[in-house]
């Protein structure tokens, strides 16, 4: 399963690679990384929408995670990928907007990787 992680913090890439090292080694999960919403859309375009699941931060400079979510859910004809939103701001506005735009899950930072793994397994 290919997972696209969208976050403006570059070190997230290293962190995910290590947190999921076993899964990556076993070939259970594959990760791709984008550092902005625009980059994420470019990636999806270029790779023919191969990502099944997208984990996106909400607060990013430029295109926000919510705008990205809207784009993905609106423009993708195939069954759209599962999108989980991750944010430091767990307020109702964010939550409701994310749900209305069709987010499949909503996590607040700091992300508990144990929980995340469980969720990924459930989707697998």
């Amino acid at each position, binding site marked *: 399963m290919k997972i696209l992680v969208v976050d403006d913090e570059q070190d997230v890439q*290293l962190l995910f690679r*290590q947190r999921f090292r076993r899964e990556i080694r076993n070939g259970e999960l594959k990760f791709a990384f984008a550092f902005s919403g625009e980059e994420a859309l470019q990636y999806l375009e270029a790779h023919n929408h191969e990502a099944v699941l997208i984990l996106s931060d909400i607060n990013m*400079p430029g295109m*926000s995670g919510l705008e990205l979510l809207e784009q993905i859910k609106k423009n993708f004809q195939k069954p759209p990928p599962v999108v989980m939103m991750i944010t430091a701001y767990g307020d109702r506005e964010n939550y409701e907007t994310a749900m209305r735009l069709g987010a499949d899950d909503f996590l607040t930072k700091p*992300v508990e990787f144990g929980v995340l793994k469980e969720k990924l397994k459930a989707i697998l």
Partner: protein
Amino acid sequence: MPVAESFRTVRIFLLALALFLHAITLSQREKIAFEKYGVAEGLPEEFARDVIQDDQGFIWITTQNGIVKYDGYEFKVFRGDKSDKKGNLQLRGGFKFVKARDGKIWTSNFGDGITSYDPITERFQNYLPNPDNPEELPYDFYTELLFEDSKENIWFLNYSRVLDTLVLAKINSSSGKMSKYLHKRNYPRFNHIVLNWELMEAGKDSSLWQLLHPGNLNIYNAEKDSMEQVIASGSTIPGTDIKDTIRMIVRGTESFDVLRGDKGVYLWDPVKRSCVESFTKLADRDNTLTPHNLQYAFIDIKGKLWVFQEEGNVTRVDLKSGTSKQIKYGEGSLKFSKGAKRTDQLSVFAQHDGGIWFATTNLSPFSEGEPLTYLYYDFAKERFTIYTEKFNDDSNPFPEGKHIFQFRTILDNSGLMWHATRPNIYKQSPKIRQIETFRHNPEDKTSIPSDTIFSLFEDSKDRLWVGTSNGLSLKEGDHFTKINFERGRNQKKLRQIRSIYEDSEGSIWVGTYGRGLFKLLERQKKLTPVNLFSGENKLEFSYDIEFIEEDTSGNLWISVWRQGIYILGKGTQEVIQKFEVDNSEKHGMNGLLVNSIYQDSEGVLWLGDSGDNEFGLYAYSPEDNAFKHFTHDPKDSLSLISNEIRFIEEDDQDRLWIGTDGGLCQFDREKGTFIRINEPLKMPSVTSFAPAGEGKIWISTYSGGGLALVGPNPEEVVFYGEEQGLLHNDVSQYSDQLLEDERGRLWLPNQRGLSVFDTGSLTFHNYGSREGMQSLPGWSRMIKTSDGMIWIGGFKGLNKIDPEVIFKKDSIRPNMVITRLGVNDTVYSGPDGDLFTKSVAFTRNIKLNHRQRDLSFEFVALHYLNPQDNLYSWKLENYDTDWSEPSKERKASYTNLSPGEYTFRVKGSNADGIWNEERASIRITIAPPWWRTWWAYGIYFLILLFIGYRVHLFQKEKTIRREREKAREKELKQAKEIKKAYAELKATQSQLIQSEKMASLGELTAGIAHEIQNPLNFVNNFSEVSQELIEELKEERAKSKKERDEKLEEELILDIDQNLEKISHHGKRADSIVKGMLLHSRGSSGQKEPTDINALADEYLRLAYHGLRAKDKSFNASMETDFDKSVGKINVVPQDIGRVILNLITNAFHAVQEKKKQVGGDYDPKVQIITKKVANTVEIQVMDNGNGIPKKIIQKIFEPFFTTKPSGRGTGLGLSMSYEIVTKEHKGKLKVSSKEGEGSTFKIILPIEERPKK
């Protein structure tokens, strides 16, 4: 007995019943959870051999390496000490315990002999083996305690190293006198030890009976102090005509005891020395038992006889009625896949009113047997429940594995089970897991359709409807039935079921997000779409329903996102009226996200928009058929507190309360204004409401102070948050109503678990994973159904809670013990022979002298349910006026007590708040010193009289002097006042400057919190990952050389190295943010230092962005930076220049935000920062594309107190301070250029100074 047939019928019936019950237990098995106590928790050694509870309530545990006393908090370990100190333990450890009636605890050990502990003296008395003295223990291999008889003799077996050479002996608990008797025994089986089956004290007359191998029954003759034979092996059993050999004797009831022979079980009258009734395996005599060989028998506490026979035959005989029931081991409710296969491996461990605990155990600690299983026989249900070694609970710490040796299970005086095993001791806690969770299972079509729950509703027929992210389902029994809808042209699935509503005629309506409105066709159990828009079919499916609500005339009000309000006529699906946003000028209702509705006591219908927008609140007036609109106005403190409406509700005095994302306010009907509740920090956002009576209301808050009680006056607010015991202060809820049950408890699920607040006692009870409660993200849905159950749904399925079970209190009161008493610097526990002749726990009275005036009391409530939550309250009578506030404190100290009589009383509660009203107490008399006796007082009086006279003379002289001084002081005072006024003026000035600094800091804090959170997350994550990597590395290293993957090791080390670098990097990042903040808040030192201007600008840009973002969620702007690297470090006061940059950036952000609000859609807000090196200066430019500054005011912006912000929003000092900092302090220039409608540019020009040479 004509019972053969009926027994068979009974047996078949029982089997069927047992199978049926077994099926139920599989689907809903009771789980028992345990807590582990091992070496890590304080045990001296892993092998817990025995456990008992003493008369005071302490738990005692024997190990191979010491004896342990446990009070719920600490393990006190008594270790063997061979030196002959008075009262110390001389055994290395202990084995089986016997508790004597005088309160002493007896145990023995391999090779070491016997010891007894007296809680009154807190001393051990040891009896060590001494083969040379016939009065003492002969053998040094092993001693096994049996029991205490009615004459205070402790009976035991003492073995030589050749195991078949042993003596039966007794020792008198008070005199210590020992006597020995010849004994022979067969190879012991486990139930020997548990049931003591070769020495017995008869229930009827307390006579003592010995079974001597190979089957001779003796009675103890106390006069001759010897054993006399009553039945010889193989002879006729008196009272019967059966020749038999006795193999086992067990104490029975007050009338008879149990003898088990090869052929039968005999109820033995010890006085008549004759058998009263017999049950045999001989088929020609009776049919109670089966023809199989007998294993063991005993009488349970209900007076029924159990007989175990080979091939798993178990018979329970009701001795009064003569009826019996047979259960076949391995069948029906005694069928299981794991555990011992033979009934002789089944031991009776604990009996209580409810039933019997059996354990299947392998006798030997050294052989690999079957894993442990437990059987509970319920007296009332007359059936067994099987528990695996995990007690059916996968998260139990109870160990799996075959090497466990289980010796004893006890139930303590509060009914909690304790297991002494190898390794560790296990305590039941809590009693059972209480919360049930329903999760989606893709393989089970009757499971809940999704783990994401959006709505819960119970209709008038008591049916529970669950709206999920994957459609609607109806709960029926343990199953969920998915409700589909009539498919028209649109084949899309139903997604989010957001509202379920039943109108007064019993019709059920369902509102979805994305698929519009549906009505339930009751007979077909299907949903049918309801079209709200005439002719506009394109909208038929793709719209969101916010609420469905019936008004007092029976019409249904439906709110549709971005469309408006549609009203369906009573009993129809026809829209009779609509208030659409498109023609809002006609009716005044223009809200796009209207999802609150409330019809108040005066019949006014209120609507609220929850969006972060300008809509706010509407009141419907039927006369005008239009809406009155209320909104937030930042300039008007009597306007609505915020436009984001969370709830509209009335309290019991019909006052209308509006909860918003900006706080709480109350509507003043007469004036048409709003009274705000000013709690910006603890009530920044409120979510739900419940009336609290007498004009008070309960409010839950988001990221505030937790739960709040407001009223009756709006300024009266009390918070109940984490300090009062709430698990998490964020108790935001989805519903506008707080869930309150019949007993006045508010249910507050949160991200840490479930908190339940009792509005009567004002206390919280919390439930977490221990009770099976999951943590939930905010915004979970809740409902209380008519059967009293509480349902909570979130992202992880649906939780069901039975409040009656969860609140079932442990009614067993704790035992209260005063354990230690400190007098001045000495702390007493055991008797010292002077102040205390008994241990403190047993002392009721002490006498002290006047120097012994500092006292401390230590105490403990012995109740093990959840001892860390036990509470204490105490009072020193004649000193304290009231009992102390209940607390977890277990020590009370008093200093400087005056002579007198005091009584210290203390009471305790268990974790369920059940108090022990029988308090522990101790009376203390402090004698007065000689100078406080009556004759001493006489002398004092005379001395006082003399002093009084002298004082009178002195006072007279003083009055005259004082008058003179007064005149002089008056003059001085006037001069001072002038000085003071001047100082105040100065202070006000500097305060103003400081307040500007703090105001800008305030803007920053949210940003800083967010900025720090990110690096901290990284630090935490990277260090956790590194731990995992190190574990992995260790695992790799533990492998043999051949298997080791050195490449992987290398890779792991590189990763760890890299992580450490990252940890350090992010640590420094957080550090620099905090330092930056400290610098900013600190008054300027005025010290110039070389500063990286680019880094400074970047840092403040981020802080300003996140600060604003946290304050206003809708805020967004693109930021561009263009930093000239050649700028490098220049000599400035960093905190001052930082402040200037921050001020300019914040202004820029405000400007673009303002414009975004006005222009909307197409405008792309942008803020740019550019640094440049120009000749001998450095330029910092802050540009925005906002509205620009009007020409007429551009001259004024650097003047103090000039501001364009609404009053209260800005000090007007920002730019003037910036100007001062740049021009005066740094000898630079601050320039502004602006084009109205296009934007502004501020330019800081700083001269590059030569570095001062040192």
